[in-house]
């Protein structure tokens, strides 16, 4: 499906009426177009939203299902905000969305976006992200990743012009372990689910534990094997959470196959942290400080539901492009891309700090919230974790240890 969301001034017919107006004289039509084309009105900046539809598990405990428009609604709000701002400086923006079905070739979907799409907000798994970034046709495209938390996309598999608005698993795990270190809850029992994503999450927790001086005292795996853990949780989780003395049980269950039922069902009376329990996330329902409540309200008005981390990333991606255009006073894609990719670009994001893209891996540096469904328990970077540039760079790989080379200038 291809949906046109933005207000388009002019549109594809633009060239014809202009010629007509000059050559044949001013018809009423021509006048109308001329009015729309007054010199102050620049060509709109075209932003595309491309998503891969992925199969999602049925909610276990009657949670709200992951909405089909997760990400897209955030991008739409970003467009609304950008146009509301842009009108004061005669800049405007358009957004169209394209969702690729489960078996569809993502590259074919990309080709339907039109000739040389310059800015693509991408909500798709890591393999899709790489397939697109490596297309010759995408040479001039800036991708803004809002759906893939995979750390490798910011490390060995990073690409120039591939920006990451969503925090990586490494950033999320760093935020969590900073919190644990601050609380001195540093003995972690790590319980992983069977999915590949769970293994990646668990690996991120291991790395963060090493980075901040916490310890994985035991590891176990749990596979619900399609079984219904709701009935058996009381007994079932005792064994996998039995182990040496620990302060927390960290769970890696990204799809939510069992983690929610683990809470209060551990062998020892220990909090559950990770993908369930106390969760590190870029955004969430209880976030309200730094005027976040305004963004939450605007989003709820538009989408009729709460804003989720991928929605926030979608909003932030379009907002960053809009803000770059306003700062550059231009919707010229060249100028916008140059500014967004430059280290001097800073943008607000309702997190109480200026946000910017890291020059070494394209990751948006940003605070990460530690949430349980009732409240923001803490916001990372946690006080005490210092960095010479900005404390935000204590989350995720820092410049010296980054494996990304794509952003470094040769020589």
């Amino acid at each position, binding site marked *: 499906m291809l949906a046109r969301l933005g207000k388009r001034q002019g549109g594809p017919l633009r060239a014809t009426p202009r010629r007509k107006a000059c050559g044949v004289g001013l018809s009423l039509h021509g006048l109308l177009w001329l009015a729309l084309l007054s010199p102050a009105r620049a060509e709109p900046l075209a932003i595309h939203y491309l998503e891969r539809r992925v199969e999602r598990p049925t909610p276990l405990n009657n949670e709200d299902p992951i909405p089909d428009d997760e990400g897209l609604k955030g991008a739409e709000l970003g467009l609304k905000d950008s146009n*509301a701002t842009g009108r*004061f400086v005669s800049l405007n923006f358009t957004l169209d969305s394209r969702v690729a079905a489960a078996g569809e070739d993502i590259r074919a979907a990309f080709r339907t976006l039109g000739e040389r799409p310059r800015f693509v907000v991408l909500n798709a798994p890591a393999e899709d992200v790489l397939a697109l970034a490596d297309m010759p046709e995408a040479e001039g495209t800036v991708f803004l990743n809002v759906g893939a938390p995979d750390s490798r996309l910011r490390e060995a598999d990073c690409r120039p012009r591939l920006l990451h608005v969503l925090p990586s698993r490494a950033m999320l795990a760093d935020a969590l372990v900073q919190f644990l270190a601050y609380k001195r809850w540093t003995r972690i029992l790590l319980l992983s689910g069977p999915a590949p994503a769970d293994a990646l999450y668990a690996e991120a927790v291991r790395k963060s534990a090493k980075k901040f001086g916490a310890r994985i005292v035991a590891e176990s795996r749990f596979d619900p094997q399609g079984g219904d853990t709701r009935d058996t949780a009381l007994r079932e989780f005792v064994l996998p959470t039995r182990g040496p003395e620990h302060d927390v049980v960290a769970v890696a269950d990204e799809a939510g196959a069992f983690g929610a039922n683990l809470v209060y069902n551990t062998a020892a009376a220990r909090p559950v942290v990770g993908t369930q329990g106390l969760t590190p996330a870029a955004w969430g329902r209880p976030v309200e400080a730094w005027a976040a409540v305004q963004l939450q309200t605007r989003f709820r008005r538009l989408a009729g539901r709460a804003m989720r981390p991928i929605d926030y990333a979608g909003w932030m991606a379009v907002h960053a492009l809009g803000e770059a255009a*306003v*700062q550059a006073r231009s919707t010229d894609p060249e100028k916008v891309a140059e500014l967004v990719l430059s280290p001097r670009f800073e*943008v*607000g994001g309702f997190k109480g700090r*200026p946000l910017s893209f890291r020059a070494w891996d394209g990751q948006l540096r940003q605070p990460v919230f530690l949430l349980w469904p009732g409240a923001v328990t803490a916001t990372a970077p946690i006080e005490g974790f210092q960095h010479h540039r900005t404390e935000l760079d204590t989350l995720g790989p820092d410049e010296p240890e980054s494996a990304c080379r794509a952003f470094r200038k040769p020589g």
Partner: protein
Amino acid sequence: MSRAAPLRLLLCAGLLGLAGSAKSQEIFVSNERDNTVSVIDGATLEVTRSFPVGRRPRGLTFSRDGRTLYVCASDSDAVQVIDPDTGALRHNLPSGEDPEQFALAPDDRTLFIANEENATTTVVDAQTRKVLAQIDVGIEPEGMAVSPDGKTAVTTSETTNMVHWIDVPTLTAIDATPVGQRPRAAAFSADGRMLWASSEIGGTVAVIDAATRKVVETIEFAVKGIAADRLQPVGITLTGDGRFAFVALGPSDRVAVIDAKTYKVLNYILVGRRVWQLAMTPDETRLFTTNGVSGDVTVIDVATQRPIRSVKVGRFPWGVAVRPASGTSERSAGAAP
């Protein structure tokens, strides 16, 4: 013990105090989370009384004669008109949705109200209680100020990151000046030639020539041992002689003192936690700051630029205004002169 008893005691003490020394200066503070206003006695620097107001009170200001208090009750979607002596609500003014801050024009009756949630500035005549206009501005309008000659009003928009200029005679938005990320407060110099606007996330204060509407200076801040992104300018107060500007720096817990002629930062004054807004007494000897996280007000001696007292008020103190004695004009936060 019930909550009402100490409140009543405080109230009585306040009224008695008022009767005893009618000239004593009073400082009013809105407590965003408590839905109350605390009143500090300017001589004793103690809270003499507090009274309930609408939900989520933020900006507050006085009529010229000090006999009327206006409070933005954001979550009640109203500007409340209150008797400052008794705390009694006289009536509500139509304010548009979610009023956050406002400025009273020099005519003492036209209120310019920033409606944070729907990107408008509402203009209300406080006497006829009629809405004169609703003007489209950028997303999340916040700071409001009216020029001393009353001809120009400005509002800052936190997400659009601009200062919007409103022509008062026609009540239309005529221009917008982009400034740093998340502009909060705006204040005109006493001569009306310069507009100062703080950018919380940008970490800067822009000084804008009010005639050309161009930024002429961008002031930055630096405090040893504090990360640059914690220096977040919010409230601004300027002295009448044009010598100094005071800028609240949010979570750095500091107020910057700036030479208003050279734009050099002269000093940083340590105050309570997450300092929001500022208000100066008309004689410009004392400066009061609201500290949102520590729930108190720091009193600064302007001559020595030192904090002299911290006064516990309610939860999340937000706005602060010095009640003018009869006949004098006033200077306060969220309500530029």
